[in-house]
């Protein structure tokens, strides 16, 4: 083979360098943009840990709220949040998945379906306080569920329904059409295709969407204030879902709005507890997801 006429790096030096510099600058800009989020989170976390970590003790987790900062704890709020979350998941998950299955696999593609679809997308953007008002009117008053955990969970369920429905639809849509055809081609009924092929394959995506939606719900304050979460509670739910309740964000807000420095530290500790709760949920999501993936 004859040697190349132009050796490497000989031609168009200036232009090559400009292109290279532009490439590097773009990479730097993208990295910087990523860092904005990471740094902000790190600073926030560092600040909260510095303020609240020394308050984060077993007593803090195990005590009720109190007028005396050294005796105050998050027990009622933490249990309230867990109750609300659990019940919300139990209500919202099946309803959302069923709605998503209907919309993707059963609904005829007509005006009504499109209208429903549009509505769901819009509902995801409605301010959460509006759901609070709905919850107050429908669950607390009209259905006489009072200011209970059930009212709160129902309200939050409605709040996150559109998010889970859309995530589930996305996951269901991502199941290759060829697999549906294969199953139909073997004489499977629509229900068999959905339950044996589509749902198992879509489940990791559905679970991820659900956990993300629940993560949003765990931070919600406004709608729960509307349906009557109380700021101060010195007992844990024992009578089940009809009990009064408070939740973590509300407790944190309550502490932060007090003038004393000690309560601000308690708020920081509360934030840490909430963060740990969130991380636990996300870890659960990842575990569930990998387990489902391994099975299919």
């Amino acid at each position, binding site marked *: 083979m004859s040697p190349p006429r132009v050796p490497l790096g000989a031609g168009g030096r200036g232009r090559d360098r400009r292109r290279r510099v532009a490439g590097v600058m773009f990479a730097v800009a993208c990295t910087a943009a990523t860092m904005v989020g990471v740094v902000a989170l790190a600073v926030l976390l560092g600040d909260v840990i510095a303020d609240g970590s020394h308050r984060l003790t077993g007593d803090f987790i195990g005590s009720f709220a109190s007028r005396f900062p050294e005796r105050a704890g998050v027990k009622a709020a933490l249990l309230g949040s867990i109750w609300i979350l659990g019940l919300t998941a139990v209500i919202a998950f099946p309803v959302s998945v069923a709605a998503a299955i209907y919309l993707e696999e059963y609904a005829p593609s007509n005006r009504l379906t499109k209208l429903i679809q549009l509505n769901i997308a819009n509902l995801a953007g409605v301010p959460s306080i509006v759901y609070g008002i709905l919850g107050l009117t429908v669950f607390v008053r009209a259905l006489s569920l009072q200011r209970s955990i059930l009212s709160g969970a129902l309200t939050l369920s409605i709040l996150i329904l559109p998010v889970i429905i859309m995530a589930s639809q996305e996951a269901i849509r991502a199941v*290759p059409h060829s*697999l549906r055809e*294969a199953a*139909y*081609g*073997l*004489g*499977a009924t629509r229900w068999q295709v959905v339950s044996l092929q589509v749902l198992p394959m879509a489940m990791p995506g559905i679970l991820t969407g659900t956990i993300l939606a629940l993560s949003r719900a765990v931070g919600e304050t406004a709608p729960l204030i509307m349906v009557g979460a109380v700021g101060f509670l010195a007992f844990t739910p024992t009578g089940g879902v009809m009990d009064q309740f408070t939740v973590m964000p509300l407790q944190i807000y309550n502490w932060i709005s007090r003038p004393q420095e000690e309560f601000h530290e308690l708020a920081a500790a509360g934030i840490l507890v909430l963060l740990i709760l969130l991380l636990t949920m996300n870890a659960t999501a990842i575990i569930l997801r990998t387990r489902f993936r391994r099975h299919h």
Partner: protein
Amino acid sequence: MASTYDIDIGGESAALEARDVSVYYGEKQAVKNVDLVIPPNRVVALIGPSGCGKSTLLRCFNRMNDLVPGARVEGEVSFHGQNLYAPVVDPVEVRRRIGMVFQKPNPFPKSIYDNTAFGPRVNGFKGDLGELVEKSLRQAALWEEVHDRLGDSAYALSGGQQQRLCIARTLAVKPEIVLMDEPASALDPIATQKIEELILELKRDYTIVIVTHNMQQAARISDYTAFLYMGELVEYGPTEAIFTTPREERTEAYVTGRFG
């Protein structure tokens, strides 16, 4: 004109018969007034250039077009004399008795065993499932290669093996007719040859309708060939006649490679 697509199937009754079949996707007509008789225990090839409607026509035979939104089938398709599109007919039963193998291997994300067993399971098979799985895999000439790793994921198989698994999966439901939509088009020559040998083997027990864009393949494996062009059935007859003495000019142009 009618004589160009008549074949003599002797005294046998047709396994499948299309009478004046048209298929529309919305406004667009993909298949135009096709008449086609599929004799039992033969291999019938549908050939023609891309978009000529051969796959669409094939999908009429097991009501697969029902699953395509906006698709509409007119005319009559009968299976041993019974109209597949009659209101009393359940498309699920149609698909069980008239199986289908698709263009791209599409095994389920499950084990080899569960892939083969899926059809029998959804159809409520009562009997020795393991035996049926083995028989089906043997029929598809795959057993020797996979018998010691039935629990492995089907995705671990090569493309050609996956396609034979898909054939085994179809056979496990014990269909009477097997429709194949370009079953070897995504495979290499060696895997293709295996599939072709398999088709010739299966002919003894099944009626096979195969869509292919590979004319040599049609010539090698089919008894009858139908040439479609722009949604119309141009010519239908014994494969040898279609390839050596076609009656229609368009057929001759296509099989000699002048277009398509």
